[in-house]
C-alpha cells in the first residue's frame, strides 16, 4: 500500500471519472450494500487477515454498535478483539495508542466524533506525534472512526465537524468517504496504514446503499475521484456534501452550466493535482465544506487554488460552508445552516456568470 499512496499523492494524472451511481466493476453484477455494511466488511476482512487488528469503543460488542456498524463482529471475533468500553474516550483512546506503540493495530470507534473532544489530548498530542518525538522509534498505526457532522438535529454539542479542528495537525491522515464503495476501500487502506488515520463517517450516510464488489480492493489515500465531468466550473468537496454537489450539478445542467464535481475522498493528503488540473480547465472553482468557514479545509482549498491557479481563475473561488453558528436543534434552522444544493447553485452561478 504505502508505495501506492506515495505515488498517487504525488501524480495527479489520469484521475478516473467514477460517477457515484456507476461504481460498478466491469464484470460482476451490482451488489448494493449500506455504508455501514461496507465499513464493517472492511474491518472484518482486515481483522481476518491480521490478528493485530482489534475494534474498541462504546457499545461496539454486545450492543452491536450504537449505529450497528459492528453488528455481528462480536460473534465472529469474540470479546478479546471486539471490546466494549466505559464512557471514557480519553482513557480508551490513550489505551489504544499505547497498544499501537506495542505494534497492535487498533480501530477506535467514537460513537460520535463530537465525543472526541474529551479525548483531544491523546488523539492530537500522542498519536500524531509519537513517531516524531521518539525520533522514529514508535509509530502509531491506529484508526479513529465514527460519525461526524450535523444533520440529525442533535444540537451543537453533538454536531461537530472535526475536520475544521483537526485537519490542521501534521502527523495524522484524514479520510472522509462519500459512499459505500469508497468507505470500504478507504477503510481497508486506513487499517493497513502505518500512520494514525482519522476516519470521518456521517450518520446521515450510514443507510445509503451503493455497489460494493465482492472482490477485494483498496483505495489509496490522496487520490480524488471525479464524480461528474464538466467544463464550466469545478466543484470540490468530500464526504456527505458531495451528494449536494451532484444534486446542484444536475440542476445547473438544466441551466446550461456544466459542473465538474471532485470528491477529495481524503483531506490529508488532499489530491491537489486533480483539483488544479480541473480548475485550469474550467477556470472556475467552488469549494463545498460542511465545517465552519474560518480556518477550515475549505479555506485551504480556496487559498491554494487562488495561489496555484492564479492566472487560470476567471473569478475568485467561491466557498460554501455551514453558517458560522453553533448547530441549532430546530430542523428548519439546521437545514438552513448546512451546505445544500441551493447554496451550491448560487455559488456556482456567481463564479460562472462572472466568467
Amino acid at each position: 500500500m504505502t508505495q501506492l499512496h506515495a505515488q498517487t499523492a504525488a501524480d495527479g494524472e489520469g484521475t478516473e471519472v467514477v460517477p457515484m451511481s456507476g461504481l460498478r466493476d466491469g464484470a460482476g453484477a451490482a451488489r448494493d450494500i449500506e455504508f455501514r455494511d461496507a465499513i464493517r466488511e472492511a474491518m472484518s476482512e482486515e481483522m481476518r487477515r491480521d490478528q493485530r487488528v482489534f475494534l474498541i469503543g462504546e457499545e461496539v460488542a454486545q450492543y452491536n454498535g450504537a449505529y450497528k456498524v459492528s453488528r455481528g463482529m462480536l460473534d465472529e471475533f469474540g470479546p478479546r478483539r471486539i471490546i466494549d468500553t466505559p464512557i471514557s474516550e480519553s482513557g480508551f483512546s490513550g489505551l489504544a495508542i499505547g497498544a499501537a506503540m506495542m505494534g497492535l493495530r487498533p480501530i477506535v470507534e467514537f460513537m460520535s466524533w463530537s465525543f472526541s473532544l474529551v479525548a483531544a489530548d491523546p488523539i492530537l498530542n500522542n498519536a500524531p506525534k509519537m513517531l516524531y518525538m521518539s525520533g522514529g522509534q514508535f509509530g502509531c498505526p491506529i484508526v479513529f472512526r465514527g460519525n461526524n457532522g450535523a444533520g440529525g438535529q442533535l444540537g451543537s454539542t453533538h454536531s461537530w465537524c472535526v475536520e475544521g479542528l483537526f485537519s490542521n495537525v501534521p502527523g495524522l491522515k484524514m479520510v472522509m468517504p462519500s459512499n459505500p464503495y469508497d468507505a470500504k476501500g478507504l477503510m481497508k487502506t486506513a487499517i493497513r496504514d502505518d500512520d494514525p488515520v482519522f476516519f470521518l463517517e456521517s450518520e446521515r450516510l450510514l443507510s445509503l446503499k451503493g455497489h460494493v464488489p465482492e472482490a477485494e480492493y483498496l483505495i489509496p489515500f490522496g487520490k480524488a475521484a471525479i464524480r461528474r465531468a464538466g467544463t464550466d466550473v469545478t466543484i470540490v468537496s468530500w464526504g456527505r456534501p458531495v451528494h449536494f454537489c451532484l444534486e446542484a450539478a444536475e440542476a445547473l445542467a438544466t441551466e446550461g452550466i456544466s459542473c465538474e464535481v471532485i470528491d477529495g475522498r481524503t483531506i490529508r493528503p488532499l489530491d491537489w493535482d486533480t483539483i488544479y488540473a480541473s480548475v485550469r480547465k474550467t477556470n472556475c472553482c467552488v469549494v463545498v465544506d460542511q465545517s465552519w468557514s474560518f480556518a477550515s479545509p475549505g479555506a485551504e482549498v480556496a487559498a491554494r487554488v487562488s495561489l496555484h491557479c492564479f492566472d487560470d481563475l476567471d473569478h475568485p473561488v467561491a466557498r460554501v460552508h455551514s453558517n458560522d453558528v453553533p448547530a441549532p436543534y430546530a430542523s428548519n434552522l439546521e437545514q438552513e445552516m448546512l451546505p445544500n444544493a441551493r447554496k451550491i447553485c448560487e455559488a456556482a452561478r456567481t463564479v460562472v456568470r462572472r466568467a
Partner: protein
Amino acid sequence: MSTASKATNPDSPLSPTGRAMPRPDLPPATLKKWLREMFLIREFEVRCMQAYQDKKIGGFCHVYIGQEAVAVGCVAAMEPRDPLVTAYRDHGHALARGMAPKYCMAEMFGKIGGCAKGKGGSMHMFDKSNNLFGGHGIVGAQCPLGAGLAFATKYEDEVISKGTSNRVTLCFLGDGALNQGAFHEAMNLAGLFDLPVIFVVENNGYSMGTSIQRGTTMGSNILSKAIGYGIEGVEIDGMDIVSVYASMKDLIDRCRRTSRPAMVDMRTYRYKGHSMSDPRKYRTREEEEKYEGHDPITKLEKHLKEAKLLSDDEKESMYEDVRTEVRECVKWAEESPVPSIEELYHDVYVEKWGPYTGTTPPAMLKEAGQ
C-alpha cells in the same frame, strides 16, 4: 446514615432497598402534590414518545419514565434558589423544577416557544427563572459545571454580598458518567474547595446497553469512589419518593450548614430504552418487571389509598387533569411557530458584531415574569 447506607446491599445496585414509606410528618397535600408531579412527568414522557414516533420530535430523545421519584423528591428537598444542573435525560428535572410543560415540549418540537427557542432540543433544557442550568449532552461535562455553580454561590456569599445565602447545588449524573475524567476532577475540586454541591448519581444500572458492572469498577458499591476524595457518600432508594425526599433533605441541610460536598448513589431504573431506538436486548423482561413492581407512582398511589388520603375518584380527576394539561401543552407546542431564519445568527454572541445580531431571552422568561 451514610455509613449505614454504604453498607447496605453491596451486591446489586439494581435492587431498591425498599424502605417503608411514608414519614408521618409529611402533610397529605404534599404527598398528593408529588404524586401529581410524578404523574405529570410520566404522562409528558409518554406523549414525547408518541410525538417522536410521529416525527414531531427529532434528534435524540431520552425519557425519564421510572426515575420520576428522583427529580421530584430531590427538587422537593431543595429551595427554589438552589441551582440545579443535569445531563441529557433532563425532561423530568425541567418539569420538577417548575418549567411549564409547554415550553419543554415546544423545545423538542423545535419551536420558538421552546425554553431555548428550539435551539437546544431534548438534551439541553435550560430555565434561568427556575435555576435550571441545563441539560448537557456530553456525558460527565455537567460535573465541573455543577462544581462551578457551587463555587459561584459560595463566592457570592464570601466575596460579593458578604452574606449567608448558603445555596446548595444539585448536580445530577448518570452512572455511566462515573467513568469520565470530568467527574473525577470535579469531585476532587469540590472536596478541596469545600464546595456546597451534591453529586446525585442517578444509578439506573445501565449506560445505554452497558450494565454498570461491565463499565464501572466497584459497580456494586459506587460510593467507594467517594472515599478517595474524602467526600461523604449516601445511598438512597430512588424508587421511593419519601426516601428520596427525606434523605436528600437531611443531606442538603447538612451541606448548607457545612458547605461540604456529597455524593449520592440514587438507586433507580429506567423502564424504557436508552433512547427511542433501543430494543433493550441487554436485559431481561424479568428484571424490568421486577422494577415495574417497585414503580414509584404506584407505590405512592397505593400508600395514599391505604391511608385513605386519596379516593379513586380524586385520583382519576387529578390524572385526567394532568392528561388535559399535557394534551394542551402538545397542542401549544404544535401551534408555536418555528424559529425565524434570523434566529440563526442570534444568541451566538451577547454582543452585536459582524453578522451576529446579539441575544434576547426566550419568551418563557418574560412570561415567567423575569
